């Protein structure tokens, strides 16, 4: 249980939570989208002001700035398109784009009238957006840097160290850019707006990250709890059952017929409990495997199937059931999880053996065709009554004849199998004649890049 506690009290970093790779990628892509709009609107507005409104602008540097923005945005776009990014790399890209944006914005503000430029508002927007990708202290520093840059620009232009670019049509009157009161007023409102807004965005982002982290921790703690608790439940059950079997089989002295009958009953109840615990563990494992945040990876259907056949063979041998396998030699790579595939085939095979009377037969077929793998597991068991087939994948549902035959089960297995097959974008079908047997057919789509490879191997 110690694992459980330690994962719950992981303190957030002193300087706030860093974005996850996923979040950073998403936000960087969003910024790239916005930047396309910004670049084109610089070009469009320059053209519109020059041609339609006949405003006298420094067209060349403005168009240059617009093109510069579009140029580095294309570079960023192609850098970020790659799916296999590391956090460090995306973070470098995130910083790089912010530096480039600031250079472009400073030039734009200068070209459109410095302290009197309407483009000043861009700094505010940008500082707020940075709050979504950076840490709080970084965003705060950026806001103050923005104030410093704009302030410096205003002072340099006021003292003629930098030429003031006037836009006549704004009709600013008597050299507004030299008016100290005006500069102070703009700087005050600009400064307070940028600091407040970026602080707000940054804090919201932090809070959101904390919540996300908390959810992840809860999820991890839950899986750890289920794992640990299941072991704690299983150990005494297994020990009790082992002792019962030793007793029942007479290794601790002769027992009377009546005592034997009672022992058999106790053993049966213990077995039921044991099945329930096992199935709960399967449920927990399958929920984890089919959760949308568990990544899918290329896995071999053949390997998972073979492993499960080997595992279930012992149980089949005890009942004198023959397991006949007809397997394609190709691996059949699908996008799934190894645990998930094992749960799917393990459960279907386990059921086939469980619901087939002694000396029966279980047949496993595996083939690949037109873009998917197909696994067929047939048995000569008790079958499923026609009325029960529509409900068979429901959680905790058990067929009437399975209950009547007093075969241990909880109705968890097939619902877990169904959820996993859905998660892997496959289909599951069943055909059953009561008293004759059941056939389950699982189809899973081949992973795209392996389709060609596999079909080549076939010839």
């Amino acid at each position, binding site marked *: 249980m110690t694992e459980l506690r330690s994962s719950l009290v992981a303190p957030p970093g002193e300087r706030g939570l860093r974005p996850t790779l996923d979040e950073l990628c998403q936000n960087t892509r969003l910024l790239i989208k916005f930047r396309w709009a910004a670049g084109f609107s610089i070009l469009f507005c320059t053209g519109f002001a020059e041609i339609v409104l006949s405003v006298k602008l420094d067209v060349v540097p403005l168009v240059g700035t617009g093109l510069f923005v579009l140029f580095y945005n294309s570079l960023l776009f192609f850098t970020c398109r790659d799916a296999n990014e590391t956090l460090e790399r995306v973070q470098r890209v995130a910083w790089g784009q912010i530096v480039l944006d600031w250079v472009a914005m400073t030039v734009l503000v200068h070209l459109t009238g410095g302290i009197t430029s309407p483009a000043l508002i861009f700094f505010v927007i940008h500082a707020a957006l940075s709050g979504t990708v950076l840490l709080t202290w970084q965003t705060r520093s950026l806001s103050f840097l923005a104030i410093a840059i704009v302030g410096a620009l205003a002072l340099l232009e006021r003292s003629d160290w930098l030429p003031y670019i006037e836009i006549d049509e704004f009709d600013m009157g008597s050299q507004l850019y030299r008016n100290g009161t005006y500069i102070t007023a703009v700087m005050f409102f600009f400064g307070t707006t940028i600091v407040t807004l970026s602080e707000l965005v940054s804090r919201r982002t932090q809070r959101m990250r904390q919540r996300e982290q908390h959810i992840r921790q809860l999820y991890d703690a839950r899986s750890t709890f289920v794992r640990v608790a299941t072991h704690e439940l299983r150990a005494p059950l297994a*020990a009790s059952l*082992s002792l019962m079997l030793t007793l029942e089989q007479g290794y601790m002295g002769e027992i009377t017929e009546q005592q034997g009958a009672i022992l058999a009953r106790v053993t049966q109840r213990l077995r039921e409990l044991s099945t329930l615990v096992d199935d709960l563990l399967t449920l927990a494992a399958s929920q984890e495997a089919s959760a949308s945040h568990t990544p899918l990876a290329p896995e071999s259907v053949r390997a998972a199937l073979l492993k499960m056949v080997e595992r279930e063979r012992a149980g089949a041998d005890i009942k004198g059931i023959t397991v006949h396998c007809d397997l394609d030699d190709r691996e059949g790579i699908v996008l799934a999880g190894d645990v998930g595939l094992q749960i799917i085939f393990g459960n279907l095979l386990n059921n086939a053996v469980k619901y087939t009377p002694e000396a029966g037969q279980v047949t496993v077929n595996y083939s690949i065709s037109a873009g998917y793998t197909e696994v067929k597991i047939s048995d000569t068991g008790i079958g499923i009554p026609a009325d029960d087939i529509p409900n068979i994948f429901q959680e905790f549902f058990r067929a009437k004849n399975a209950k009547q035959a007093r075969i241990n089960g909880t109705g968890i297995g097939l619902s877990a199998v169904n959820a996993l097959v859905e998660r892997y974008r496959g289909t599951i079908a069943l055909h059953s004649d009561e008293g004759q047997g059941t056939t389950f057919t699982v189809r899973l789509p081949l992973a795209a890049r392996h389709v060609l490879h596999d079909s080549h191997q076939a010839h």
Partner: protein
Amino acid sequence: MSQKVLIIDDDPDVVLSLRMPLESAGYEVHEAGSQAEGLVAVESVKPDLIILDVMMDTHTAGFQLAQKLHAPDAPEETRRIPILMVTAVHQTTPLRFEPDSDYLPVDGFIDKPIDPKTLLAEVAKLLSES
């Protein structure tokens, strides 16, 4: 002389359910309750077979002990002793381990709950192979 079986398991109830069938089948049974005790007992008892529980003090204590006993640099006589591993997780949990000489130096598995018949069959099989 009867063959010696060493049971290394921290659950006395499991030890008892292993001991009774083995003794009635004529084996000389010794027991150890932990990894450390087990190492000492292997030296002193010089068993013909070791029955080892996978989860003792930690979830992997059994594996660690098996690895120690069957490591390439372990004494030849220790390495030759077959190990039967008792586990309650083998049957239904999707597991990352299966018998494989590459990374798991045990000779066989037996699942809890222990069925005396299966136990005696496994033990006889491993002893006849070694």
